[in-house]
């Protein structure tokens, strides 16, 4: 165990914290990672897999943790969507259940950031290497890249090749290979994807898991310590005293204080901002929590007149046309031969008054799901809820995310885009979520502690350092002033690598 104070104390053992810790240790720094949850063993993973296949519980990481692992600490709900499901409070964090999509942000999607695409681009390339991203430079409108993808893209499915691509051609929307942190060939100790199609648990290890890669490596070092099941209450900044992290060991209930030369809050888009709010006197900016947002998803269910073949468990292509040419907010569209909305299909089949397994089987083989990931305006807010306290009496986060006029226009456009693609594919659209009042939260919370050039415009500077401090940094999607319709992890890991370089060279940059 390294002697205190360590060089860097990282709150959160998700992908951002793991990559940062790994690089810092490689650069000779000592780190202590404090994680609210526990670490999953190989045996537990095997049990989850067996349960999942039988439809038994627990069948995923959050079910295995149970509500008692997190509800008493932070149960945020927005319109029925619970961030309890979006994150995994365990070693590995959201990488335990993510879809592993790693699109690069477009220059336009970085418009609000205090740096441009060109300065981030080398770090994006390095992040692709760290995460092991498979992809192809086949997007004709993608910005320039200085390094190739570490692995080739996954082969396209029968449906994508024979049905989707011709439909996209008709519409003038290029079909682009997805960049995913799922190995398409053996990579850095990870197996190539074995097509088992249960990606959430990925038994082959082809998908990136922070706990099995960066954290597993870093914990071999005497310069690294991982404190599991340790809840962080706040960062205390009493005048005349060194800054300290107030933590509680969840197993014993014992409180203690940790010191470090530098603190990095890498606890996700919700809890990072909440921790800043709980740490009174830390963040000088009144903008903490202001401008919270998330991606919104619209899903449609399409039934074709023919068998569409099989799919991997993840989508291997996307349509980026409406990212490059947004009418309102940007939209990323995906279509894959996989049924997600069984309720709609069952009710559709029951319209003739009978339910036959044969008809259901036929329909399942003809079903296609269309999903549009849309950009949301930063008009929400995250604040402390005095009426809803956690297990230690600290206020939980309350999130208010109204839909702006522009959001509604973006969602209307997304529903229209789903209609258009459905028509081009020649199927019968059974549902188009937004039109039926269904909205899915993207689980990409961002914008509650944004980076900016000046304290007037943000909570943190361009390095992620909280304005008004020398030694406290944020490393989560809370930093993002915008997200477009790009999944956030690749950009976040690029920021982690950049931060590691700065902290590793000579303390706080």
């Amino acid at each position: 165990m390294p002697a205190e104070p360590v060089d860097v104390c990282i709150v959160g053992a998700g992908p951002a914290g793991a990559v940062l810790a790994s690089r810092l240790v490689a650069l000779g720094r000592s780190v202590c990672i404090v994680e609210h949850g526990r670490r999953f063993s190989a045996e537990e993973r095997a049990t989850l897999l067996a349960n999942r296949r039988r439809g038994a519980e627990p069948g995923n990481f959050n079910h295995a943790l149970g509500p008692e692992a997190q509800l008493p600490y932070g149960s945020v709900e927005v319109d029925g969507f619970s961030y309890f499901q979006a994150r995994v409070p365990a070693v590995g964090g959201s990488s335990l259940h993510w879809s592993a999509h790693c699109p690069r942000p477009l220059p336009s999607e970085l418009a609000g950031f205090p740096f441009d695409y060109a300065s981030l681009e080398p770090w994006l390339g390095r992040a692709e290497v760290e995460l092991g991203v498979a992809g192809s430079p086949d997007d004709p409108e993608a910005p320039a890249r200085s390094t190739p993808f570490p692995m080739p893209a996954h082969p396209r499915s029968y449906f994508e090749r024979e049905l989707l691509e011709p439909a996209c051609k008709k519409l003038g929307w290029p079909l682009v290979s997805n960049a995913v942190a799922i190995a398409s060939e053996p990579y850095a100790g990870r197996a190539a994807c074995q097509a088992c199609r249960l990606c959430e648990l990925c038994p082959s290890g082809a998908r990136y898991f922070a706990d099995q890669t960066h954290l597993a490596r870093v914990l071999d070092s005497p310069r690294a310590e991982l404190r599991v099941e340790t809840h962080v209450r706040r960062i205390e900044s009493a005048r005349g005293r060194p800054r300290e992290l107030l933590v509680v060991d969840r197993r014993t209930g014992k409180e203690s204080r940790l010191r470090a030369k530098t603190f990095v809050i890498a606890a996700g888009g919700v809890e990072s901002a909440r921790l800043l709010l709980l740490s009174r006197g830390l963040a000088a900016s009144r903008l903490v929590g202001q401008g919270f947002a998330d991606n919104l998803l619209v899903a449609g269910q399409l039934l074709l007149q023919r068998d569409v073949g099989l799919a991997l468990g993840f989508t291997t292509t996307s349509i980026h046309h409406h990212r490059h040419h947004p009418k309102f907010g940007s939209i990323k569209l995906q279509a894959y031969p996989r049924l997600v909305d069984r309720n709609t299909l069952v009710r559709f089949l029951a319209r003739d008054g009978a339910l036959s397994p044969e008809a259901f089987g036929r329909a399942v083989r003809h079903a296609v799901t269309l999903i549009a990931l849309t950009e949301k305006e930063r008009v929400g807010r995250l604040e402390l809820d005095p009426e809803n306290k956690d297990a230690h009496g600290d206020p939980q986060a309350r999130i208010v995310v109204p839909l702006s006029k522009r959001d509604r226009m973006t969602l209307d456009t997304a529903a229209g885009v789903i209609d258009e693609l459905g028509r081009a594919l020649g199927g019968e659209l059974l549902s188009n979520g937004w039109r039926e009042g269904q909205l899915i939260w993207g689980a990409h919370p961002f914008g509650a502690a944004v980076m900016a050039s000046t304290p007037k415009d943000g909570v943190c500077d361009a390095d992620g350092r909280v304005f008004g401090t020398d030694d406290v940094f944020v490393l989560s999607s809370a930093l993002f002033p915008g997200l477009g319709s790009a999944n956030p992890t690749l950009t976040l890991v690029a920021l982690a690598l950049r931060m590691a370089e700065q902290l590793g060279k000579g303390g706080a940059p």
Partner: protein
Amino acid sequence: MKLSRRAWLAAAALAAACRKKPVTEATPPAPKEPFVRLVYALGPWPLDAASGREIAESFQRGQPPSAPSGLDFDDLATRCFEDRRTTGSVNLGRMDEKAKNFVLDFAAALYRIPDVHAALTNAPPEGECPADRLLHTRAPI
């Protein structure tokens, strides 16, 4: 993890049996437990398939939709089973709204189970690695 070609073949055989034999020629006895009876009636396998019982028991241990109060579950399961045995499908026309909605929810939940879904798609069950890892690129059979 290249395993269980046997399980894949079993799933394919189950699906094939389902396609060929929606109505069993003999009359298999109805399971005594109403829950199992309903799973047999709605599931994609012949009414005498042993795998149906295994899946039904596993499904029951999970979190299946529970029957609304006032619904005679035993009677409903019997009617569904008899429909399936005689016509190959479950007749929803004779059910009241409450029973019909429950049966639809039950069917949707049943088909969410990977092994049940696999029996419909001619694919190895999710979570099991196929012998051919490019199976998604092949034209459907």
